[in-house]
């Protein structure tokens, strides 16, 4: 119940922490793309190796990343059930009454699970190793070229960072309100349809009202400190690529080249 701390920034001192946030974001996108290169199990092992390496270099304990998977276990079980029921290709490996399981169904599920594993661990490493403020600046800088097409990249980056900043707050508020209503006899787990609707209302209404209040307070606080959306803003600390980032980019490019090569020649 209190484990909603997934993906929270861990202020450690490591190689990965010191990388430019842009480098990390680009590497994440690269990995997300690389997952879809059809390079089979060899490819997945290469990517997983790369992730393991980043994990070691980031000094983040593997158990923290594994914590992020707990909520996903249900989803994976669901996936397996759906896949097994829907996919009827390949060799029949098990049959009992109307239940028929084909090897392709198992294989496909495994593929999807590994892809999820890769994407989630990569994004968890990114958020755990980057200060949210730096991350925003990184997103803003990466979006900057779109500014030429009148894309409001600064506003979008600000919105993303506020949204990220408020996720834990809103989860906290939700729990507080749920506890208050539980004390008034609301049962969020059981009950008839009518009671369920009441229960949801008793959560949603206060949640909206507190969120709106928080948004209003935040807007006033920002305005009071001179924030004007359209005006250019200066920074106290600017981002700069250094030699480490170039090395990581190089490794990223090599990774993709390797995967493409595997997809053509090794399978």
């Amino acid at each position, binding site marked *: 119940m*209190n*484990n909603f*701390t997934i993906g*929270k920034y*861990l202020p450690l001192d490591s190689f990965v922490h010191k990388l430019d946030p842009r480098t990390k974001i680009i590497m994440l996108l690269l990995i997300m793309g690389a997952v879809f290169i059809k390079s089979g199990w060899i490819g997945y092992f290469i990517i997983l190796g790369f992730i393991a390496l980043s994990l070691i270099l980031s000094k983040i*304990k593997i*158990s*923290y990343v594994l*914590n992020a998977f707990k909520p996903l276990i249900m989803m994976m079980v669901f996936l397996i059930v759906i896949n097994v029921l829907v996919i009827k290709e390949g060799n029949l490996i098990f049959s009992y009454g109307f239940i028929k399981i084909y090897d392709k169904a198992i294989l496909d599920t495994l593929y999807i699970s590994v892809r999820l594993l890769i994407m989630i661990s990569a994004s968890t490493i990114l958020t755990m190793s980057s200060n949210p403020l730096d991350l925003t600046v990184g997103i803003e800088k990466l979006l900057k070229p779109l500014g030429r097409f009148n894309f409001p990249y600064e506003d979008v980056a600000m919105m993303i960072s506020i949204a990220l900043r408020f996720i834990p707050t809103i989860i906290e*508020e939700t729990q*507080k*309100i749920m*506890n*208050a*209503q*539980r*004390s*008034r*006899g*609301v*049962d969020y787990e059981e009950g008839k349809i009518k009671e369920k609707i*009441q229960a949801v*209302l*008793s959560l949603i*209404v*206060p949640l909206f*009202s*507190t969120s709106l209040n928080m948004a209003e307070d935040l807007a006033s606080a920002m305005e009071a400190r001179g924030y004007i959306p359209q005006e250019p803003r200066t920074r106290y600390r600017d981002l700069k690529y250094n030699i480490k980032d170039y090395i990581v980019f190089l490794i990223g490019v090599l990774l993709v080249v390797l995967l493409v090569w595997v997809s053509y020649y090794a399978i």
Partner: protein
Amino acid sequence: MPIEIEKLNFIYAKDMPFEYTALKDIDLKLQDNKFYALIGKTGSGKSTLIQHLNALLIGSSGKIKVNNFEIYTDKKNKNLKNLRKEVGVVFQFSEQQLFEETVLKDVMFGPLNFKVSESEAKAKAIKYLKLVGIDEKLFEKSPFELSGGQKRKVAIAGILALEPQILVLDEPTAGLDPESAKEILEIFFSLNKTIILVTHDFDLVYSYADEVIFLDNGNLITKRETVDFFTDDELISKYQLELPSLLNFQNKLSEKGFSFTKKHKNLKDLIKEVIYE
């Protein structure tokens, strides 16, 4: 013995890098129909402790028994609703829990959840709204149109209407004007229930509480009779606690040569003794 807590521990974000032990080996026994004040610095674990009393938080280890209802820390608890009917909790910032269309409906919400009939729920709602000093004119208004203090009073009425045996209050008077704060405490005081009040206001503690429970950094430092607590100079100076103003006043009078038979918990009694002795 309505509440017995033994070796209770609680850890926030267990197994995460930012895990935090908020309660450490708490042992506590509370009696029926007494008024307890739970005090301690910000972050000492007061809110965490009271949420264990109606099983909103379940300890990492230890034992809790409330009116013979045992809350298990090592297996799944059943029928928590029965427990929550016995223990009414008014939360810090309780005004945030309002959601119904009208003030009256919001107060009726709790009793209805506990299967009280519609007419009885309404009667209770009216009774307790009046008790906390909400004017009848406001009954049909939306709770969102009320002032902060009025909202707080409605939220308190919402818990009182459950008529629990044990009433737990987390800073119910923070942000209320001194007059309303006093009125509300008088109401709690007159209910003749077991009351556990979390507060930073030592003047209120001194006048109303039978006993003080003092937490520091997740540890239970002491639980004892209110006057005993505030006259333990060693403890007061060790934790740099401020004395209640009435006690301060009486001490100053004593320094000037007045003598008293006992420490007085309200100004009237103090003045009486000064005049008639």
